[in-house]
C-alpha cells in the first residue's frame, strides 16, 4: 500500500518537472535578442541609467532627461555628430553682429511641431519667457541670463514688458537675440535643453506655464519638434520614442525608434548588455574593466568626457579653515596611482580644476603629489595648535560603489602619508545634497560635468555667493578675474583671466580636484554613426544599425 502512494507521488513529481523543462525549452527556443531583432526593426535599445525626473525641457536637470529630450525636441541650432560644432537646426542660417552681442536667426519655413502646427519665432520667445518666468522656478533659467535683462526679469526685478528681454520675433521666421556681453560659445549654448522650444497650446491646455507637475509631458500629450515623437512611458521600465515624419529632416533619420531603459544598477545593466538586451550602456563598473577588456575588447569604449571629479572642503570650520591642512590633504594624494590602480578607466589625474583643452584653454598643472611637503604642513599646523592629532574628520559621499572605492582608496592614502584616519560616511543622494548645501560636512565628494565646452562652466562655480560653491570660500580677486573673462570677446584675454582663476584655486585650495572623467561605455558594433564627444552628445538623427562590415 505504501509503495503505491510512493509511486503516485513520484509520478506526480516527474510530471511536474517535465512540464517545467518543457515550458523552459518552449520559451527558450523562441528568444532572439533585442540586438539581433533590431537589425530589422531598426530600434535602438539604450541604457538610460536613471529614470528622468522631468521631461519638461525647462525643468529638467539630468543627463537622462537630456538623452530623451534631444530625441523629442530640437533647438535653433543642432550639432555636428563628431565635433559638436553648430549646424542648422530649426534655424537654417544666422548672422552675428560685429560686437558679438546680436544674433539674427532665420528659421526654416517648413519647421513644424509633431502635430502639424507650424513652428515660428514666436514659439521661441514664448519658451524663453516661460523658463525665465520667476513663477516657474526653473533651475536652469540661469543658462538664459546672457540675454539682455533676462537676469533682472528672472529675479523678479522687472516685469516682462519692462525688461524687454533680448529675444524678439521680428516676424514669424526671424528671431533676434541680444546679449548682455559677447559669448564666443553662444551657439553651442543653444544646444542645451533649457533653450529648447515648447508647444504653447499644449502648455496652456494643461496650465503649465507656471505650474509644476502637470501631465503635459506624458506620451499622449507631449508635442515636440525633434526627430522622434513620444510613444510610451512606463516608469522604471521603458521610455519609447518613434520616428517623427513631420520633422523637417526626417529623410535623414534612419532609426525607426529608440527604447530607453532606466536601469540604475550598473551590474544589472552590464548583464543586460552581455545578454544582447541593450545596444549601449550608460556606464561601466570600474571593477569590471579588466574582465571586459579581455572578453569584449571591441565593445568597451573609453571616451573623454568633460568633467572633473573632486572633493570639497568646508572652510567654515576647523581643521579645514586652515590652508595648511587643506594643502596637506591635497598633497598626500597620489592621483596617478588612484587613476591607474583604482579607477583603471584611462582617466587622467586632475592637476587643475578645468580639464585641459576645454575650449582651447590649457591651464598650468598646479595640484600635485608631495607626501613630504604634506607631512610638513600638517606637522606645522599641529605644532602651532599644540595638538597631537587632528580631530576626527568625516568624508561624506553619496551612496555608490564607485564613490565608495575612491573614498576607501583615499582613506588608505591619508592614513599612509599623514597618519590620519578619516571616517567614511555615505548617505543617499537626497540626504547628501541637503547635508552639503546646509554646510554640515567637513569633506565631501563632488563632480561637475560641463554644460558647454568652455572653461567658464567650470570656473563660475567658485564665484562668491554662487549656489554651487558650498565651500564657504570667497575671494575678490577670483570674482574680478571671472567678471573680466565674461566681458571680453578676446580668447587670449579670457584665457588669461581663467588662468588667474586657476592660480587662485591652487593657492587657496578650497577643493581637491582628483581626476578628469572618462566616459566608460559598452557599445555594440552594429551601432553606427555614433561618435565619442566631450559632452557625450550623440544626435540620434545620424545613428543607424548595421552589421559591421569586416575591414580587410
Amino acid at each position, binding site marked *: 500500500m505504501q509503495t*503505491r502512494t510512493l509511486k503516485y507521488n513520484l509520478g506526480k513529481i516527474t510530471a511536474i518537472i517535465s512540464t517545467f523543462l518543457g515550458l523552459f525549452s518552449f520559451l527558450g527556443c523562441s528568444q532572439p535578442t533585442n540586438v539581433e531583432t533590431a537589425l530589422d526593426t531598426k530600434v535602438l535599445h539604450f541604457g538610460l541609467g536613471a529614470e528622468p525626473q522631468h521631461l519638461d525641457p525647462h525643468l529638467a536637470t539630468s543627463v537622462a532627461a537630456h538623452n530623451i529630450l534631444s530625441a523629442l525636441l530640437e533647438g535653433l541650432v543642432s550639432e555636428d555628430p563628431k565635433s559638436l560644432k553648430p549646424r542648422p537646426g530649426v534655424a537654417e542660417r544666422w548672422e552675428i553682429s560685429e560686437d558679438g552681442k546680436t544674433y539674427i536667426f532665420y528659421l526654416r519655413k517648413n519647421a513644424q511641431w509633431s502635430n502639424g502646427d507650424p513652428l515660428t519665432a514666436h514659439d521661441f520667445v514664448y519658451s524663453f519667457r516661460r523658463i525665465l518666468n520667476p513663477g516657474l522656478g526653473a533651475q536652469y533659467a540661469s543658462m538664459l541670463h546672457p540675454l539682455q535683462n533676462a537676469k533682472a526679469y528672472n529675479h523678479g526685478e522687472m516685469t516682462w514688458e519692462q525688461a524687454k528681454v533680448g529675444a524678439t520675433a521680428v516676424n514669424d521666421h526671424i528671431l533676434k537675440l541680444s546679449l548682455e556681453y559677447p559669448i564666443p560659445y553662444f551657439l553651442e549654448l543653444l544646444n542645451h535643453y533649457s533653450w529648447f522650444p515648447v508647444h504653447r497650446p499644449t502648455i496652456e491646455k494643461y496650465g503649465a506655464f507656471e505650474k509644476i507637475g502637470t501631465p503635459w509631458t506624458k506620451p499622449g500629450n507631449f508635442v515636440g519638434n525633434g526627430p522622434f515623437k513620444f510613444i510610451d512611458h*512606463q516608469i522604471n521600465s521603458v521610455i519609447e520614442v518613434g520616428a517623427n515624419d513631420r520633422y523637417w529632416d526626417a529623410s535623414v533619420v534612419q532609426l525607426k525608434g529608440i527604447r530607453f531603459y532606466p536601469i540604475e544598477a550598473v551590474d544589472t545593466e552590464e548583464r543586460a548588455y552581455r545578454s544582447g538586451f541593450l545596444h549601449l550602456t550608460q556606464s561601466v563598473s570600474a571593477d569590471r574593466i579588466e574582465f571586459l577588456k579581455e572578453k569584449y575588447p571591441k565593445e568597451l569604449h573609453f571616451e573623454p568626457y568633460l568633467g572633473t571629479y573632486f572633493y570639497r572642503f568646508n572652510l567654515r570650520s576647523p581643521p579645514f579653515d586652515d590652508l595648511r591642512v587643506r594643502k596637506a590633504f591635497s598633497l598626500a594624494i597620489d592621483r596617478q596611482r588612484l587613476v591607474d590602480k583604482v579607477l583603471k578607466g584611462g582617466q587622467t589625474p586632475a592637476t587643475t580644476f578645468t580639464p585641459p583643452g576645454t575650449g582651447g584653454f590649457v591651464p598650468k598643472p598646479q595640484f600635485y603629489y608631495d607626501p613630504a611637503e604634506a607631512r610638513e604642513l600638517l606637522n606645522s599646523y599641529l605644532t602651532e595648535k599644540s595638538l597631537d592629532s587632528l580631530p576626527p574628520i568625516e568624508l561624506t559621499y553619496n551612496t555608490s560603489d564607485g564613490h565608495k572605492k575612491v573614498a576607501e582608496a583615499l582613506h588608505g592614502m591619508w592614513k599612509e602619508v599623514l597618519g590620519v584616519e578619516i571616517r567614511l560616511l555615505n548617505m543617499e*543622494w537626497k540626504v547628501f545634497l541637503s547635508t552639503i548645501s546646509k554646510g554640515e560636512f567637513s569633506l565631501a565628494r563632488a563632480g561637475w560635468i560641463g554644460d558647454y565646452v568652455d572653461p567658464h562652466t567650470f570656473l563660475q562655480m567658485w564665484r562668491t555667493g554662487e549656489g554651487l560653491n558650498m565651500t564657504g570660500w570667497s575671494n575678490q580677486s577670483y570674482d574680478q578675474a571671472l567678471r573680466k573673462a565674461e566681458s571680453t570677446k578676446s580668447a587670449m584675454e579670457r584665457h588669461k583671466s581663467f588662468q588667474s582663476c586657476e592660480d587662485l584655486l591652487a593657492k587657496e585650495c578650497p577643493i581637491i580636484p582628483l581626476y578628469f572623467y572618462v566616459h566608460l561605455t559598452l557599445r555594440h558594433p552594429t551601432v553606427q554613426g555614433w561618435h565619442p564627444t566631450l559632452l557625450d552628445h550623440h544626435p540620434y538623427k545620424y545613428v543607424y544599425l548595421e552589421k559591421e562590415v569586416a575591414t580587410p
Partner: protein
Amino acid sequence: MKKVVLSRILQAIPTLWVIATVTFFMTRYAPGGPFDSEKAIPQEIKVKLESHFGLDRPLAEQYLLYLKNLLQGDLGPSFKYPGWEVSELIATAFPISLTLGALSLVIALLIGLPVGIIAALRKNSWLDYLPMSLSMAGICLPTFVLGPLLIYVFSTQLSLLPPLGWYGPADWVLPSFTLGLFYAAYIARLTRAGMLEALQQDYVRTAIAKGASSFRVVTKHALRGGLLPVITYLGPAFAGLISGSFVIESVFFIPGLGKFFVTAAFNRDYTMVLGTVLFYASLIILLNLLVDLLQAWLDPKARQL
C-alpha cells in the same frame, strides 16, 4: 463569521490611521527633502518648488489636508515623477508585483508541497534528507545571489531567457522561479512537519488500524492537517512576497511596487511612501482575514475561536 469580518474591518480603520500618521511624521522629520537637487538650487527656487506642492504650509495643516484627501481616495501627486498621481503609479505597479508574487507562490507550492509530503511519508530515508537539505539551501541562499546566478546561466550563456524586464511572458520565468524556490523551501519544511504531526494524531492512527488504505489516509486526513501550517504561513508569505519583492525587482529590473517604494523612500517622495505603506497595510489586513477564514474552515477546532 460575519461578526468576525465586521470586527476586523472596524479594527482596520484605526490601524490604518495609526500607520498613516506614524509614516507621515516619520518621513517629514527625516533629513532630506524631495526638492534637494543636483545643481544645489538657490533658496528662492527651492521655496517655489515646495510651495507648488504645498510643502511650505505648517506641518499640522499638511497632515490634515492629507487625511482629508485620503478619505476621498486621493493619494496625491508623486514628487519624484511630476505629472503622475500616486494612485496611478500604484495601479500600474501593483498588478506586476501581484503577478510575480502569485506565480512565485504557485511554483513554491508545486515544488514545496510534493517534496514535503514525500519527505514526511518516507521519513529518515534519503527521500527525506536530500530534499530537506536542498530546501535548507533554498532558505539560506539570498535571492540576490540566486538571481544573478540564474541570469548568468540561462540568459547570458545560454540565451534561453531574457536577462531582465517585465515586457512579456518570457520575462516571468526567471524571477518567479528565483523567488519561488525560496518559498518552496519553507513550504516543504512546513508541510513535512505538519504531516508528521497529523500522522501521529489518534484519529489517523485509528483510521490506519481500521484498515483504511494508506493513500486514503494521506489524502483525507493527514493532508488536511499537514496543509494547515502551510495555509497559516501563506497569508504572511504572500504579503511578504509582495512587499519584500524589491530585491527581485532590483535584480531583474521589474517595475513592481517594491521598487517604487524603495525609490520613493530614497527620494523622499512623501506621498508615494505614504500611499505605498497604506496600500500594503490594507492588503496585509485583508490577506490575514482571508487566511483566518480559510483556517477556520479547514480546522474544526479553530472554529471555536
